[in-house]
C-alpha cells in the first residue's frame, strides 16, 4: 500500500432508479500508482459506480446515500454533501461544481476508446488541449506532445492526423495518450478490452498499465476478463450484483 493519501474514498454508495436499486452500499478506496480493477457481472453497476466516482450521476432519483472524498486533493470535503437525496437537480449542480476535476484530476476512457476522440480535431490539437488542463503547463508543448505519442507507441506524424485517418489500434493508442496527457491522478478505463482478440487485449492492457505507472497515475480498470484482473490488478473492487467490497490483492 502506498503511504500517500488515497485518490478516491467512496463509502456506502447507493444509487436508485425509479423501480430498483442500481448500486447498493458500495465502499472502496483507490490509491495512486496502483491498478484497481472494478469487476462484477453485467448490470452490477460497474460503469455507474465509476461515473459516480467522477461525480457524474445521471439517474433519477439517483444518489440516496454515500460519501465521496478525494483525500489527495482535499481530505475534508465530502463531495456528496448536499447531493444525497437531492434528486437530479442536486446532481446537476454537483456535475457543474466538479467540472474542473474531470479531464484533470481524473480522465475517463470509454469502452470504444477511439470514440472518445473528437473526430473533427487533429490528435495533436486534442493533446495540446489536454496538456493545458495540467497544474503546470510545460513551455514546449510540441515536445511534450511528441513525448506522449512516443510513450503510447505512435509516430510523431500522428500528431497531425485526424482520428479518422488512424487505424483502429492507433486510434486506441491516441485515445490513451489524450487520457494521460493532462497528467491526471487517476485514469478510469471502461472495458478497454471489448471486442479484441486475446493477444491484442493483453497488449492494450499492458500499455495502459505501463503508461499510467510511468505518469504516476492510478488506474481504475473495469474488466470482466478474469485472467487480466488476476495478472495486473493490485486491488479488486468486486460488485456482486448489488453489494460491493474491496478485496485484497487479486
Amino acid at each position, binding site marked *: 500500500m502506498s503511504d500517500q493519501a488515497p485518490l478516491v474514498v467512496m463509502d456506502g454508495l447507493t444509487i436508485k432508479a425509479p423501480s430498483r436499486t442500481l448500486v447498493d452500499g458500495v465502499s472502496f478506496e483507490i490509491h495512486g500508482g496502483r491498478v484497481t480493477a472494478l469487476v462484477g457481472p*453485467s*448490470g452490477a453497476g460497474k460503469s455507474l459506480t465509476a461515473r459516480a466516482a467522477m461525480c457524474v450521476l445521471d439517474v433519477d432519483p439517483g444518489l440516496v446515500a454515500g460519501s465521496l472524498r478525494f483525500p489527495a486533493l482535499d481530505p475534508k470535503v465530502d463531495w456528496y454533501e448536499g447531493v444525497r437525496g437531492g434528486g437530479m437537480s442536486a446532481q446537476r449542480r454537483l456535475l457543474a461544481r466538479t467540472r474542473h476535476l474531470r479531464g484533470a484530476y481524473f480522465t475517463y476512457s470509454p469502452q470504444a476508446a477511439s470514440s472518445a476522440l473528437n473526430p473533427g480535431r487533429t490528435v495533436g490539437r486534442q493533446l495540446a488541449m489536454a496538456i493545458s488542463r495540467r497544474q503546470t503547463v510545460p513551455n514546449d508543448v510540441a515536445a511534450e506532445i511528441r513525448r506522449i505519442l512516443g510513450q503510447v507507441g505512435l509516430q510523431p506524424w500522428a500528431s497531425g492526423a485526424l482520428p479518422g485517418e488512424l487505424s483502429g489500434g492507433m486510434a486506441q493508442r491516441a485515445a490513451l495518450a489524450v487520457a494521460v496527457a493532462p497528467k491526471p491522478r487517476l485514469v478510469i478505463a471502461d472495458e478497454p478490452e471489448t471486442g479484441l*482478440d*486475446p*493477444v*491484442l487485449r*493483453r497488449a492494450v492492457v499492458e500499455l495502459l498499465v505501463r503508461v499510467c505507472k510511468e505518469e504516476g497515475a492510478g488506474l481504475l480498470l473495469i474488466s470482466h476478463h478474469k485472467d487480466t484482473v488476476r495478472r495486473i490488478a493490485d486491488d479488486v473492487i468486486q460488485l456482486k450484483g448489488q453489494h460491493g467490497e474491496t478485496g485484497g490483492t487479486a
Partner: protein
Amino acid sequence: MNREPDIDSPPVVVVKGLVKTFVQAGAFPWSESREVHAVRGVDFRIAPGEVVALVGQSGSGKTTVSRIVLGLEEPTEGEIWLDGQRWDGVSENERRPKRVNYQYVPQDAMGALDPQQTALEHVVETLTVLGGRSPEDALLEAVAMLENLGLGQRLHALPRAMSGGEQRRVTLARVLALRPRLVVADEPTSGLDPDRRESVLEDLIGNLPDGAGCILVTHDMSEARAWCHRIFAMLAGRIIEVVDLRAEEPVHPYASILFDPWSGPLPTQPLATTGCPFRPDCPKASEVDGDRCSVEEPGLLPADPRTHRVACHAVDR
C-alpha cells in the same frame, strides 16, 4: 456438452487445399497492387454432430475460411464439399435452393435483421419462403422456436426495441427453424456481456438438429473450450494446431498464447514471410536445430486428421 460427433458417417463438410488470395489495389491507379494471402492451404473435415471452433487473431484467415465454406466467397484454389456435393465453383442459382441446409449466423445481428419486421415476422417468413410451410404451420413453429429461445415476450418487437442479445437470438431462431445440416457462426457472442454470451451459445449449440455440424468462428478461447469438440487454431492463413481441448492442451507456442495471453512473452514482432510465421516471437525457435524455423514452414503433423495435430518443428509429433 452432451452430443458426440458421428465420425463413422460421411462428413458434412470437406475442405481440401483451400487457398484464397485477395488482390489489394494500390493507393493510386498506377500503384502496384498487393496480393494478400488470406488462406494458404487449409484442409479439414467436419463430422455430423461435430462442433468445431476456428480460432485465431484478426487477419489469421478464420473468417475467410468460414465464408468460403458457405459459398459467400469463391476460393482461389481448393475444393469445398458439403454433404458429398461440390459447393465451390457452382453457380449461385444452383446453390440458393440448397442454402436452407447450410446456414450462416453473421457477426452483426442487427445488420442482418429487417428493421421493419418483428421477431415473429422474421421467422415466419423464413418458414414460409424457405421452409415450404403453410402460413398456419409457420406461425405455430415460429412461435415455438422463439419461445424456446426465450423470446416469448418479444414476438412483436421490432429489432430496434431489442437488446443485442435478443437480436442475436432472433437470427438464431431464423437459422435453427430450418433445421440445417451445418451452421457457421461468425463470432456470435461479440459485443455481448459475459453472461449473455453463455446463454447465446447454449441457445445455438443446444438447439442444433441431430447430426448437424457447426463451425464457430471465435477469438474467445474459453468459449471454444467449453462448447467445441475440436479447435482449429489458425495463424497467417494456415491451421497450426488441431486439438480436442476436452482431452489435451494446445502445444503450439502461438496457440498456447492464444489460449492464455499472459502465459508467455507478448508477441510484438510482425509475422515472418519465410519459414514459420511465428518465428520472430517464438520462445521455442532456439530449441530447433539449425535454421529450420526460418527456412521451412512446418506442416501439420501427424497426418491423421482426427488426432492432435501441430505445425511446429519444436514439437515432436
